[in-house]
């Protein structure tokens, strides 16, 4: 009836808080260090089962962070982010089913990042140049996820169909071969930690400020001289490259790649982690991925067929009543506690 995609691309984000700039503060760095140390000690304290589970949570956390960079910062929602995660996993899986060795491992890593990033570069250029953003962009990415899952199921000779890929050779990093679950866990931990720190750094550079500027007011950012198409295309490419990197990590950890990883349920999970954790906070989505996936594995027995129903209703309720997610709840508790300590230091009689 009215208006083209260009109107739909002007999207206001009232609910997400603007990220703070500048250097990370000391308490945040301390929490980060303690968390990484805790994850590093985990395999020494628990068994294989929990190590594998937490390793998977960390991979998912990286996917959540990659979507948060795109959605929480640049305001572009991908409803099909698992497609890029899955592309990375399939690229690495296909290379490694052919055999191991250092060269193949390096190729697997390169392709796992380059294939989803390349796909995002082409798609992003075509879409953003065409003035498609916001709601339309979300729908197009949703279609990507839906179609790729169907293709992976149908194209049996290449992807192994519904059975997926298995029998991958262990990753060979030259100095060490990732053949045990524990070594895979440490690989995941190192890569996810570095990638997370890199994304936090990125959001604090001038480029990161440009992302926020575009999200909060696209036309104003444009009139200030930012190239909207370039900034959006680059962030989409980076985000999908990170999702692909997570897909790469999934291969040594699970030794199995399957079509549903690309699909809509997986894509929805990513959105759920980010929403429940809190958009535009980077830490929130990490928490969201860990908490939601932990609950999913802990409650899978009790809830059985109801888990997806709960997730669907949760999305509705959180967006309506707590758009800031877990992060906003924790931040409120933190500042409340800080205020109480502050009052105790300076007695009210003074």
């Amino acid at each position, binding site marked *: *009836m*009215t208006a083209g995609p260009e109107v739909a691309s002007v999207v206001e984000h009232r609910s997400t808080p603007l990220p703070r700039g500048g250097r990370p503060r000391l308490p945040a760095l301390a929490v980060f260090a303690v968390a990484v140390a805790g994850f590093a000690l985990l395999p020494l304290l628990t068994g294989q089962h929990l190590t594998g589970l937490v390793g998977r949570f960390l991979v998912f956390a990286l996917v959540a962070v990659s979507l948060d960079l795109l959605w929480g910062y640049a*305001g572009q929602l991908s409803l099909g982010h698992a497609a890029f995660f899955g592309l990375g996993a399939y690229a690495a899986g296909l290379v490694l089913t052919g055999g191991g060795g250092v060269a193949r491992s390096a190729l697997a890593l390169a392709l796992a990042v380059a294939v989803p990033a390349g796909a995002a570069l082409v798609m992003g250029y075509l879409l953003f140049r065409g003035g498609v953003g916001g709601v339309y962009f979300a*729908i197009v990415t949703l279609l990507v996820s839906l*179609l790729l899952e*169907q293709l992976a199921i149908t194209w049996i000779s290449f992807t192994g169909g519904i059975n997926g890929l298995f029998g991958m050779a262990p990753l060979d990093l030259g100095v060490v071969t990732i053949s045990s679950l524990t070594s895979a866990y440490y690989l995941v931990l190192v890569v996810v930690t570095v990638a997370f720190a890199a994304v936090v750094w990125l959001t604090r550079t001038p480029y990161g400020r440009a992302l926020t500027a575009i999200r909060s007011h696209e036309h104003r950012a444009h009139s200030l001289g930012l190239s909207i198409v370039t900034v959006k295309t680059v962030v989409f490419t980076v985000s999908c490259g990170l999702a692909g990197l997570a897909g790469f990590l999934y291969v040594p950890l699970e030794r199995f790649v399957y079509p549903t990883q690309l699909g809509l349920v997986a894509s929805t999970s990513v959105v759920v982690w980010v929403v429940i954790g809190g958009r535009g906070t980077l830490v929130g989505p990490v928490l969201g991925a860990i908490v939601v996936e932990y609950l999913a594995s802990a409650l899978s027995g009790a809830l059985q067929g109801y888990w*997806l*129903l709960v997730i669907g209703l949760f999305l509705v309720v959180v*967006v309506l009543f707590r758009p800031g997610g877990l992060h906003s709840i924790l931040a409120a508790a933190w500042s409340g506690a800080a205020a109480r300590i502050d009052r105790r230091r300076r007695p009210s009689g003074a």
Partner: protein
Amino acid sequence: MGLTILNGLMLASTLALVAIGLAIIFGLLRVVNLAHGELFIIGGYVVFAVHSAGASPWVGVLLAPLVVGAIGVVLDRGLLRHLYDRPLDTLVVTWGLSIALREILKLLFGADTKNVPVPVPGRVDLLGVAYPTYRLVLIATSAVVVAAVLVCFARTAFGAKVRAVVQNRDMAEAMGIASHRIDAVVFAVGAALAGLAGAMLTPLLGLRPEVGLFYLARSFLVVIIGGVGSLAGTVGGAAVIGTGEAGISHFTRPVLAQSLLFLAAIVLIRIRPQGLFSRRDVR
């Protein structure tokens, strides 16, 4: 060849029916309803329930738009109207609703495929093929309903009110149009059209809760290719997608056909962002 043409015509006309519901809800409310596919498939389940109860499937076809329209009003008034100014949040909420509705359908009816018999048996010789009569009934009914919707929005007093609200909500309210009532009615009509389409297509679908998703995906292709500039564009988009999918499926798998159309749609966005059938200056 004749079969491909007739299948294309059927896909195009039924797609127009589904997509036009999506398009009018988006056109007026700026709400992209990702639960549209579930509203569509609920229409199918209404027919299944009526048929299981022993009544004529036609009762189901008549009942489905009413049931689905009512669900639409409840969703709009209860949830979505609080989010009209947050488009991406609306998207996430309707996606949540889509999942929840799909799971509720699974709990109520089971995840297996249900079969509903074709209400009009027999075949008619047309273009050199014996084509099922019911599919011809589908083509005709869809064409009539879509035409009626187009006429309603272009020619009636109600249509004029809707267009007034679209152009300038505040001004329309100042002229005495109850815009929230228009919102509710439009959402109901959009949902009812999805329900009607689902009800009529049930015998051909292999009724499963997930089928709605594929119709949602196709409807979006239709809207992207047709452009959101006009309802006529949606009909044009349905014609392209419907005949395109039937035509390409003649040579290869339907999944590949859909993927090719999707790639074509993305390239098209770069060349003609406003879609094939609308002018950029239409406001």
